[in-house]
């Protein structure tokens, strides 16, 4: 039973990586990163059941708090970029190509 939850967590994490690598819209890339963090949260809760201790639940809450802070900053950056360029495609952000 718990194995299935762990497998789901890994699948979600890989979907997140795929989203970050393949999508070109900043907003979708950011959603994919959030998906990766939530996959980890699911993993924490599942492992917590596996080991029968409560640590994992607390850790998942911590990660959620950090993810919320990160989301606040990322959305602000996205609004800023939209003001500058009027578009959110990653291909148009090309001032810093070394």
């Amino acid at each position, binding site marked *: 039973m718990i194995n299935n939850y762990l497998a789901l967590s890994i699948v979600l994490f890989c979907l997140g990586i795929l989203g970050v690598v393949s999508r070109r819209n900043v907003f979708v890339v950011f959603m994919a990163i959030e998906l990766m963090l939530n996959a980890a949260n699911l993993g924490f809760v599942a492992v917590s059941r596996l080991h029968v201790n409560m640590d*994992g639940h607390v850790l998942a809450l911590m990660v959620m708090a950090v993810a919320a802070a990160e989301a606040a900053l990322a959305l602000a950056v996205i609004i800023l970029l939209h003001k500058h360029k009027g578009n959110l495609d990653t291909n148009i952000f090309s*001032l810093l190509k070394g």
Partner: protein
Amino acid sequence: MQDIMAILPLLATCAGAILIMLVAAFETFRREGISILGIGLFAFAFFVQLTVENSSPIMPYSAIFNGMLVTSTFTKAAGLIILACGFFSAIAAQTYFTQNRWFVLEYYCMMLFAACGMILMTMAAELITVFVALEIMSLAIYTLIGCDRRSVIRSEAVLKYLMLGAFAGAFFVMGSVFIYAGAGSTRFVDIARAVSEGGFIANPALVGGSLLIMVALLFKAAAFPFHAWVVDVYDGAPMPVTGFMATAVKTAVFCVFANVLLINTELRDGWVGYLFWISVLTMFVGNLIAIGQNNLKRMLAASGIVHSGYLIIGLVAIGSDTVSNGAVIFYLAAYAASTLGIFVALSYLGGEDEKRIRFDDFNGLARVRPYSAACITIFLLSMAGIPPTAGFMGKFYIIAGAFKHGFVALGVLGIISSILSVWYYLRLIISMYFREPQEEFGVSEMTLAPLGTFALAAAVFAISFIPVVI
């Protein structure tokens, strides 16, 4: 009570940040007042860190807060480096703001919060504590890079750093899940016990988890496969922020790296073979990138990659038996003094909107401003590793440690890489001393940054007298 005393520098930094946030709400405090307050708070936190006594200095995990944090002479030295970096970056920022005629009140508050995250990071002995500290630091640094909202380049640099940083952060969390699954806890002491009881290679969850955590840490340390963001982000950030990132962030990340590798000898031995190649590739790829640059800031960013390579040599060769990791922390101090020195000098020599940034823009600096040119030369020679400076002693300790622990090839490659790096450091010295000046290098007002530069030039020599056991 003992626990609270041990994290006093952390509390001082955090209280300082909140104080600036509150003070910034009043109309009466403007740019100068807030700048002086920020610099003063960094100095105050530095002295608090200096006075904190460590009751058991050598123990690897003399734990406080029930094993969540550790303090040792290693974390104390790292805290001192971080706060000193903050102090000099704040001095650079004050001058930079005067020259560029823009200012955000929250700048110093964000710097203090970043320093707070870094100090917590050096002390953390539990994976999620590391993650939370890493994010406190990173979120503050993202804000610092993007605080000039008018500039498109700054915003793009934030986007790049934020997306890649959050991606690496997600890897770190997933790695913690695996280690939690494998060891039953995320505390370093419990992980160490689980590894010594059940073995490392036999436990796939531990191997996978530590791989994901290594990826995240190598990303933050700008090591070889994950170095591509560094040059662009450093180039896009304002000058004082670049200096702060290049020195303080690196110190914090390498402390966590050293702490993670100290968990257990078996876990460390499992990764040393890979870290060997990563350090070699980091040094040579960084050198190749640096040689090709025409822009001074990008060259310094690439040289930061090379110095990460030397630090990884330190982690590979030294470690398990020398618990305090003296050579690594010495190298971090030497590197911080010389790199930050150049960034402080550039933030007043760079002129308005960082218009002087290419090698050719500094032609003939020695004729017009001989003292500044001499200081920059000292910093560059220290980074290249020329004898009487701290940079030479740092390289000497690291490479001697590599020879002593049987990593002869690594030591030889480190020497070759440092000979290669002389080429791009000398380029700036040649343009400063042997070309005709084309302009006046006017500085609008006399500010604190020149004093900070001279202090750091003195520090480059002073640090080399600190004794280190390898």
